[in-house]
Structures are given as C-alpha cells and as structure tokens.
C-alpha cells in the first residue's frame, strides 16, 4: 500500500473523503473558472472573427467550433461516468458515486447540445434538420443511454442502491457503445451509400484547427467547473448530517 502511495500525490487519495474532496475542489474551482473563461472567450472570438471561412460551406461551418467540442465531451463524459461508477461499485467510494451521479445530467445536456448544433449545421449543408447519419444516430443513442441512467437514478429512492444500479447500467452501456457505434455505421452504409458526408478535406489548415483545439480544451474546463459545482452540492446534500457541513453552514 505504501509503495502505491508514492506513485500518486497525497491529495489524490484525499479525494476519496467527501470533506477533503469538498475542500480540494473548492481550491481548484477558481483556477478552472479562469481557464475556462480565458479559453472560451479567446476560442470563440478567434473562431468567429479570425478563422478563415470554409471554401465550400462559407461561414456556416463555424458552428463546428461548438459542435465538435460538445460531441467529444459528451462521449468522454460517459466514459468518466462509467469509470467513476465502476470505482464506486468496486471500492464502495461515496465520492465516486457522487461523481457518476453528477456526470449524467451534464453529459445529457452536452449530448443535446451536440445534436442541436448538428441539426442547425445540417440545415444549410444537407438541406434538412435531421439526417439518419451514422454519427448523428449514435449520438442520439448516447443521449438515450444518459436518459436511461438518469431515469434509473431518480426511480430508486435509496441513494446507495441507486448509485450501484446506475453504475451497472452505465458499465453495460460502456460495453455496448462501441458495438452500437460500429453497427450504426454499418447500417448507414448499407442503406444509403455515403451521400451525406461533410466536405471532407484531408486536413484543416492550422488557422482553422487551432481555435478548435482551444475550444475543445475550454469545453473540458467548462465540464470540470460544472462537474465540481454539482459535486460540491451533492456532497453537501448527502453529508448534511456530518459535523463539518453544519459548521460550514453555521459560519455563513
């Protein structure tokens, strides 16, 4: 055990305790908020005003700077939820359960955002709001998986049981995601040979992808901030009977 501890800093293990986790996230939060604001503002200004327009799609392609980061984030959020759920299931860590619970609504919202921006982008490019494109469909299914986890969580009253059940479900979903992704891709190519493809260029010029990268990192910071805010609320709510929470509230 002591061998193991040397590999990771002490605060990492302290994250397992709700109280310490509350303190640590409280210290990390301002840094992430500043980074998020800086990155998102720079990224949006750069993307909307300075990045060159696409040679075919003109300015309508600029929605990519919201669409792609949210699509990436929606997928990694599911990964985090399933991994946190597994940690909670195996080591019975309360904080991991809380992280998994906080991930679900954020992930669902971001998946909706990815779908909405995809639809808005689809209108000028493909000529219709919705196309049964493989990527859109698998994002929709990801949203369904999120909604299932949220529904299961809210249906079970006991917090511990709810967290465990939701963790099992998200792990089953995690196994299924690659299967769903490939089956949907194959299904699409079976039914309609790739007529609807974005004007794929082999590589974006750096003036285009650098702001995209900034936006992706900014979105991750945004995710970290909203996750920490939700997590802190969750900790306070579940530990409301603990002494330190009472002290904290009495102080204010």
């Amino acid at each position, binding site marked *: 055990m002591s061998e193991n501890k040397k590999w990771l800093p002490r605060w990492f293990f302290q994250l397992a305790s709700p109280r310490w986790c509350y303190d640590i996230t409280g210290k990390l939060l301002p840094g992430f908020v500043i980074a998020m604001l800086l990155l998102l503002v720079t990224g949006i200004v750069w993307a909307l005003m300075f990045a060159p327009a696409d040679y075919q799609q003109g300015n309508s392609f600029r929605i990519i700077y919201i669409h792609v980061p949210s699509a990436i984030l929606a997928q990694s959020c599911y990964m985090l939820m399933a991994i946190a759920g597994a940690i909670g*299931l195996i080591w019975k860590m309360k904080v991991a359960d809380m992280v998994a619970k906080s991930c679900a609504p954020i992930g669902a919202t971001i998946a909706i955002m990815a779908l909405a921006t995809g639809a808005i982008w689809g209108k000028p490019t493909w000529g219709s709001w919705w196309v049964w494109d493989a990527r859109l469909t698998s994002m929709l*299914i990801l949203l*369904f*998986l999120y*909604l*299932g986890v949220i*529904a*299961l969580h809210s*249906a*079970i009253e*006991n917090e*511990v*049981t709810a967290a*465990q*059940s939701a963790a*099992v*479900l998200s*792990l*089953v*979903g995690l*196994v*299924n995601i690659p*299967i*769903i992704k490939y*089956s*949907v891709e*194959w*299904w699409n190519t*079976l039914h309609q040979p790739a007529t609807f493809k974005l004007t794929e260029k082999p590589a974006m010029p750096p003036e285009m992808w650098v702001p995209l990268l900034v936006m992706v990192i900014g979105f991750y910071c945004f995710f970290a901030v909203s996750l920490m805010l939700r997590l802190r609320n969750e900790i306070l709510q579940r530990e409301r009977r603990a002494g330190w929470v009472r002290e904290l509230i009495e102080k204010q």
Partner: protein
Amino acid sequence: MNLQTNQQLEIKEPALMSGFVAVLKRDLMLAYRRKSDLLNPLIFFLMVATLFPLGVSPEPQFLAEVAPGVVWVAALLATLLSMDGLFRSDYEDGTLEQMLLCPQPLFLTVMAKVLAHWMMTGLPLTLMAPLLGVMLFLPGEGMGGLMLSLLLGTPTLSLVGAIGAALTVGLRKGGVLISLLVLPLYIPVLIFGTGAVQAAVTGLPLVGFVALLGAMLVLGLVLAPFAISAALRISVSG
C-alpha cells in the same frame, strides 16, 4: 489423489448441473401453469404487426419492403413486454433471496432463468414469425433469414433485457423504466437482424450478419449473466 479429485468432480458437477436444470424446470412449469403469460407476448406480437398495414399502407409492395423491420421491431417489443415479469414474482415471494443465498453460482441460476424465458418467448416468436412474414408479404426467400436471425437474435434480447429486469425488480413501476434502459442496447441486434432478412430477400450472402448476431449472442452469454447477478444482488439488498 487422482481418485479423490475424480470423486470431488463427480460430486460437484451434478450439483451444478442439477441446480441449473431444477431452475429451468421450475420456471418452465410455472409458465406452463399460467398459460396466459405465455400467450400474451405472442398475441402482442401479432397485434403490433397488424397495426403497420392499418397505420401505414396495405400495399403488398410497400409491406414487403418494410416487413423485415416490422417483424423485428414487433419481436423486440414483445420480448420487452414479457421482461418485467422475469424476476418480479420471485422477488415478491422471496424465492429470489433464496436463490442468491444458495451455494450454486448465481451465474448458472440466472442463465437457467434467462434460458427458460427465451424458451417461453423468443422461441415461440421465432416459430410464429413466418406467419407474420406471410401477412406482410415478405418474399419466400426471406423466411429462412428471418427465422435464423430471430433464432440467434432473440436470446441476446432476453439476456440484455434481463439486465434491465434485474435492475428494476425492486421498483413498483418497473415496466416503462425497463424499456428506457434496455431499448438503446437492443439497437445493434435490431440492425443486424433486419440486415440479415434484407440480405436474404435480395439474395445476398447471409453469413456476415449471422456471424455478427452469433458473436453478439456469445458476448451476451459470457458477460450479461455477470451484470444480471450484480444487478440482482443490488436490487435485493437495497
């Protein structure tokens, strides 16, 4: 030494298998005694398939085109409908707790229950599918593909659905929730199932689809019972 291990094996193996067989027999017997539970999913299957010509179009040509999808969606919904009862009565009368406590591995018990469930829903659905195929003007060449894909696909549906049933067994209103949890997971089976039928209709080789359906079934057989057991333990302890 050798003799001893042999004896141990002889004692252990029948115990494992007899547990499996006992659960299977019990579930089949229960289903046989309550025949309406056995028939309801089949009637539902027939009714859902009837709705499509009424709701969309009775044109034979159109129906022949959508028949694979309609039969598959109807089979999927019928399986889902019967899923809620898989563990519920056992949970309510306490049998499930005894099953969790007994020395036989839960993996096998769960497997036997799912197998019994499949024999009562998936298998009859598969056998009934050609009737629906005829009603929906599915070309004769597609019948083999339809039955083969259902034969390989419905056990996967039962296995995956059992995870949802195990997660919601402790809840009052599990019915709608199961569909929410399980339907997204059914999508790959649906895609390859209908794909197989369409390939059979157009005379393309079936092997790829059948292999994929088989692969999903094997994956389900290996992994789903673990998830079902874990979910049952959580539901019963909570």
